[in-house]
């Protein structure tokens, strides 16, 4: 007598020979994919597209925000080889330019440069002479200079503060750079056109007022009136003097660039300097990477959380739906 278990095994449906042969063939071929489009069946694809677009938009927004973090002072890059310090259309701000400085045909830019030269202390005297010579050749002058010669290693050094006509800045820097090994070089420029125009306008107004007062003084008929006008003339004259001094100072600052030249012992600074720079570079790179990772995490972590929770809900919903098929 066969048991129930035997019968249950006996009544198990068996595949047709045709289906078996078909499966054998498909197994051998590795179930080649059908070429029909599966887009309609993939409901999550639009979601992925939207998520990718959102991510891209956020990244672009973040990068644009990063670019906006510029200092408010109009610093002007001095990488350009343009030697003109007074009229320089390349430095003019785009568009109306009113946000940075009033519209004007003359741009006033205060320029400065720092140069660190490394050389053997035995050559310091010769280099100092050359610094003076080059400064003079470019119609500049040395405002301050110090030169120290010490026996101990690293004790020697020198520094020079030069004023060089802005138009001569680039050729002068080029010649100074050839005197020794350039350890560091930086240039900067600040657009002071707004301040310059303001002083100029105030000076014009003060002069016009003074001229007017002088005319009124000539026409004064009483001593009292003449005395009052003279008191006002004294005040206005003092204001004109202050403004002229400011104009002179501003002209000097913009027509002459300030150049700081530092002279260092090439042996003393070489190893330490390069090591310090390497460490600084490494720290800087690490900070950049960390900044990027934090920004990326700020975007990706919430997206991943939302995606993960959605996936979890979808999986559970699908499982419940499958279970309901047998309910």
């Amino acid at each position, binding site marked *: 007598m*066969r048991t*129930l*278990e035997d*019968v*249950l*095994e*006996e*009544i*198990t*449906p*068996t*595949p*047709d020979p045709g*289906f*078996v042969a*078909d*499966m054998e063939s*498909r*197994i*051998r*071929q*590795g*179930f080649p994919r059908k070429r029909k489009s599966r887009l309609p069946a993939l409901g999550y694809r639009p979601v992925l597209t939207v998520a990718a677009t959102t991510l891209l938009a956020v990244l672009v927004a973040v990068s644009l925000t990063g670019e906006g973090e510029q200092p408010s002072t109009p610093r002007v890059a001095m990488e350009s080889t343009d030697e003109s310090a007074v009229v320089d259309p390349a430095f003019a701000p785009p568009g109306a330019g009113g946000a940075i400085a009033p519209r004007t045909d003359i741009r006033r830019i205060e320029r400065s440069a720092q140069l660190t030269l490394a050389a053997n202390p035995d050559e310091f005297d010769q280099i100092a002479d050359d610094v003076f010579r080059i400064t003079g050749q470019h119609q500049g002058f040395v405002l301050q200079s110090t030169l120290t010669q010490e026996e101990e290693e690293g004790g020697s050094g020198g520094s020079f503060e030069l004023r060089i006509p802005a138009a001569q800045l680039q050729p002068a820097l080029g010649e100074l750079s050839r005197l020794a090994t350039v350890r560091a070089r930086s240039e900067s420029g600040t657009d002071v056109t707004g301040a310059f125009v303001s002083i100029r306008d105030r000076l014009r107004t003060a002069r016009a007022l003074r001229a007017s007062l002088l005319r009124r003084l000539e026409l004064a008929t009483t001593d009292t009136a003449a005395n009052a006008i003279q008191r006002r003339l004294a005040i206005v004259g003092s204001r004109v003097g202050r403004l002229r001094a400011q104009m002179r100072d501003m002209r000097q600052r913009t027509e002459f660039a300030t150049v700081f030249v530092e002279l260092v012992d090439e042996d003393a600074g070489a190893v330490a300097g390069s090591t310090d720079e390497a460490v600084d570079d490494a720290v800087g790179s690490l900070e950049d990477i960390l900044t990027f990772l934090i920004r990326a995490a700020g975007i990706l972590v919430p997206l991943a959380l939302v995606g993960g929770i959605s996936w979890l809900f979808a999986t559970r919903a699908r499982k419940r*739906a*499958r*279970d*309901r*098929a*047998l*309910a």
Partner: protein
Amino acid sequence: MDGAVAETMSGTFERSAPTPSEAFEALYRRAFPRVYGYVATLLRDRAGAEEVTAQAFERALRKRRSFRASRGSEEAWLFGIARNAALDELRRRKRRAALEADPEDVHATAPDEAADGALRRQAVRAALGRLAPRERELVALRFAGGLSHEEIARVLGISASNVGTRLHRTLEKLRRDCDEDA
């Protein structure tokens, strides 16, 4: 299947291969009739069973790198895939009513069967048809699929002892039903 073989299977699955690996083909040869039997018992439709069986093996082939021997045998893994495919098909075709209907052509009786045996099989089929779908699935996994209690537990996501209890009760119910028919 023992653990050593399962590990071999896992290792073979993890290799990148454009065509089915020998291990997958061995799994196919070992499990194909049983998977078909299980799916056909669940769907009670020969054409549907063929389609779902092929779909299950195709999915298994594509997802073979997801198999982990530590989570159970490859048979349990394969039957899990087949079950999902069958349930998806049931949902899609709204076959719930058919599940509870009388057996279809998959259980057609051969004309030369002995009368006693045929009667006995007919009674069992009828009793099987009267079982609840979940109970019938349990019987199909055990007798059509030939899975152990542990493997069934893996497929259904319940404990092995629960499988044993439920299977025992289902068989008792089936036995009583058959006896009443007789």
